[in-house]
């Protein structure tokens, strides 16, 4: 019986690998999760248990299943500490930064725990002879996403002051993070966009970048009156999403864009297609951003609709799911508002500020914008 589990686990890992390094689909995650389960059920082959998790951490992270990655990673890290001769922590450092920079997404994790883990990451980098650049980078991101601007600026300064070494994050990712910093922390959209030019025009890219930049840049560009530029970014950004539920937050940004530019039909199609990623996934900050976008889109539609109801294909798992697919817009908006409030409260309580509540307010303010763009035939 155990032997069956083991060979089956190996088979699943092989199968997942055959899907290719750049495949980050939920299907691949499912294969690897099962491989982990079977390898554990077998329990005799630690190499196999490690391999399955190694693949899983990578795939789940890029797919946006951060919780799955975290749990698999925790096991690996435990192994390293248990037997450092056999399991090398150097092999985990690259992934460590992904894990830590996803922690802020879970309001159930207190800030002190994030700090403790980051300290641990810092120690391990030092022990392996790497500098602290990636550590400053994840600190800055966690600070930014939890709304602590003072710390964000400080960690940006430290990051800038530390040269790249072999442990540094990929250059495209670093640039995307810097873009984020200028856009959100400094509120300097023009500088941010100029900085991100190599990402936006396609000169630089990697497995995750510029997917998010292409989404974040849309509304700021509209605000700057650079309307024409947005079309290509929007189309390209949507194209890159593919089956990566990691992009759920970016989908929210695209929904904002489609709402403001009057492309409501497209907006609805996008909302329907990706709703389950948000409502069923555990990535709560992604869910928050998606719901914000959904709220903006449906509000704009409600403002202009002649009927109080609308046909929508929503996931069955929603508590108010309806067989006839017909929903009252006001009820839907009220539900979204409730969800947003719940999430914002949870995040803000953990962060000790009102950063998320302010994001809700900012979404309301978006409705003041109205920049029709025709995407027909594009």
């Amino acid at each position, binding site marked *: *019986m155990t032997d069956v*589990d083991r060979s089956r686990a190996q088979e699943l890992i092989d199968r997942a690998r*055959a*899907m*290719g*390094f*750049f*495949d980050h*689909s*939920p*299907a*691949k995650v*499912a*294969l690897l*999760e*099962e491989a*982990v*389960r*079977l390898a*554990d*059920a077998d*329990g005799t082959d630690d190499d196999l248990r490690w391999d399955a998790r190694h693949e899983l951490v990578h795939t789940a992270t890029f797919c946006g299943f*951060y*919780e*799955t990655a*975290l*749990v*698999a990673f*925790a*096991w690996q*890290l*435990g*192994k390293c500490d*248990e037997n450092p001769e056999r399991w090398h922590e150097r092999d985990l450092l690259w992934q460590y930064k992904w894990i830590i920079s996803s*922690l802020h997404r*879970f*309001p*159930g*994790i*207190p800030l002190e*725990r994030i700090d*403790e*883990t980051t300290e*641990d990451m810092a120690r391990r980098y030092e022990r392996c002879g790497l500098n602290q650049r990636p550590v400053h980078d994840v600190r800055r991101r966690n600070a930014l996403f939890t709304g602590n601007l003072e710390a964000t600026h400080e960690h940006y300064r430290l990051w800038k002051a530390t040269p790249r070494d072999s442990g540094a994050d990929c250059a495209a990712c670093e640039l995307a993070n810097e873009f984020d910093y200028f856009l959100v922390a400094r509120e300097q959209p023009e500088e941010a966009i100029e900085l991100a030019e190599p990402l936006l*025009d*396609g*000169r630089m890219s990697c497995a995750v970048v510029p997917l998010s930049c292409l989404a974040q840049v849309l509304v700021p560009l509209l605000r700057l009156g650079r309307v024409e530029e947005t079309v*290509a970014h929007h*189309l*390209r950004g949507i*194209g890159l999403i*593919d*089956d990566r539920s990691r992009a759920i937050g970016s989908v929210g940004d695209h929904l904002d864009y489609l709402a403001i530019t009057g492309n409501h039909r497209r907006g609805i199609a996008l909302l329907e297609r990706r709703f389950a990623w948000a409502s069923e996934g*555990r990535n*709560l900050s992604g869910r928050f951003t998606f719901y914000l976008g959904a709220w903006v889109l449906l509000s704009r539609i409600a403002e202009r609709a002649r009927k109080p109801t609308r046909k929508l*294909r929503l996931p069955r798992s929603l508590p108010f799911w309806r067989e006839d697919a017909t929903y009252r817009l006001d009820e839907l908006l009220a539900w979204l508002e409730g*969800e947003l409030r*719940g*999430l914002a409260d*949870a995040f803000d309580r953990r962060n000790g500020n009102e950063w998320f509540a302010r994001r809700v307010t900012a979404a309301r303010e978006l409705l003041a914008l109205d920049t029709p763009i025709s995407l027909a035939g594009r």
Partner: protein
Amino acid sequence: MTDHRFQIDLGGIIDLLANHLYSTPQVYVRELLQNAIDAITARRALEPDHAGSITIEHVAGRDGGPATLLFADDGVGLTDDEVHQFLATIGRSSKRADLDALRSEFIGQFGIGLLSCFMVSDEIVMITRSARDPDAKALRFEGRADGTYTVTPTDLESGPGTQVWVRAKPAAAEWVEADALERLLLRFGGLLPVPIRFSSGGAEPRVLNAEGAPWRRRYASAEEEREAILAFGAEMFEVDMLDFIPLRSRPGEVDGVAFVLPPSHATVTGASNHRVYLRNMLLSERVDNLLPSWAFFVKCVVNCNGLRPTAGRESFYEDADLEATRAALGKALRSWLVRTAEHDPARLDALIRVHHRSMKALAVEDEDFYRVIADWLPFETTGGRIPLGELRSILRAGVPPGARPLLRFTKTVDEFRQVAPIATSQRLTLVNAGWDYDEELLERLPVIDPGIDVEPVAAVDLVADFEELDPAEADRAARLLAVAERTLAPHRCSAEVRRFLPAELPALYGIGDAALFRRSVDIAKEGADETWSALMDGVAGGPGADPGAATLCLNLGNPLVGKLTRVADEELLRRAVELLYVQSLMLGHHPLRETEMTLLNEGLLALIELGIDARGGEEGRP
């Protein structure tokens, strides 16, 4: 303060190009051809009817030394001024004056291509006469790898045009050998609309590219076309292709063909390397960003006029034009598939048998495509692997007229294995949607076929379908149920008693997604410190987190369970339930938590002991 000019070390630049920009010294052939073509294009701006031609001569070296090559064109040539400005100034190009307008005409743009010659030669000699001025004198330009050059007036019999002489350095002999050169000319210039004449050893020049692109030729019949194009594909890629799909796209101005790879060559790792021509000159044989990612079952040969190559000329800028081109090419592939589904289903069938994975990827992306292709896509079911069309008719046949068929599927392979025997015993057709794309496709099936319902099932759901007990049975099982509930509660599992098939199965463990995740957290926490345990609790908890349900369903139809309803000894009952629980976990291939391990170890011993006591009691009776 004085301003200084940057000094350029040509040796350093050449080294940079050779080692970092160009993949092989062979590209000098490409760069020289490109310049010749550009010159002819430029001359046409002055003389629209100018046909143009390019002649290459291979002159063997004396005493077996390396050869000298002559590349001659009857293009626009260069004036004295231009020689200094463009030829001798690195990074300056005559083709960039008005970037956007000219981008659509010339291949060159960076002003560095000529330097590639220095990879094979220490000296470039160019003799040129400008077409701009009828009285222009011919000029001789000599550029050397040490960064010096001279320009002197010279004699040239013929009309305007340019001759480039390359005397290979000894170390580069292999790159200028006659046969190799001929192959390179054909490879890089095979599609050029201007004749390329080649001669070596003083023989009569031959035109190398008389045939042009095979997809632009006219054929007597479809068979002839198919044969010719497939032969071209086989020659190009050294693989016998299954089929071909014509490609055309207005964005990027693309034309060409996509070859359908045989299964052995289509790697699911994606990214085929396509062979791409830019303005009919071979740009690269390794372009991997031209098609959407789902198109990994084809390999293309295409020409494009409207995309911007990177300086190394091996790929394109990831810009909006490329994105639009990719979309348009994706559309072309798609509509071919759609047309074939309608007119030549057998051909499509053959294709899908081999490439269903990418077809499914495409169907997920694109609803219209899904609609067309749906019936051909294969799925794994309790009745074997069958195409969706067949599956739909099976389901439809299984319900009375007017009723809606229900397609049930499991979300994971593991669940499928767990549930399949039950489904089979209940005569349900169940689909395994644990593999790539299947779940998404099935969930969207009602969109393209509103007459059908789909439903994901887990073991738990099937149990809910199981027979309820009648009141008398329920009464009989009440005590067992109560003990089971109590026993399993600490393991975050509830209990039920039902009757289901197969009767050999005493109990079935069912678990939903959330509870499954919770189990993996529990197991990871066993080896983790306090901080990591807290992190994992943090991701598993949080607002709206579903603690998740797991259920152990005991089968009253099973003889052992039947006996258990008659056991009075609570301790014995508890131990039995614990073991049934652990056994069904193992049956479902779930790794055991530490607490469950303990159950297994202690439970077995305890049961043995209880058994011995019971026997011992009997035997000891007077």
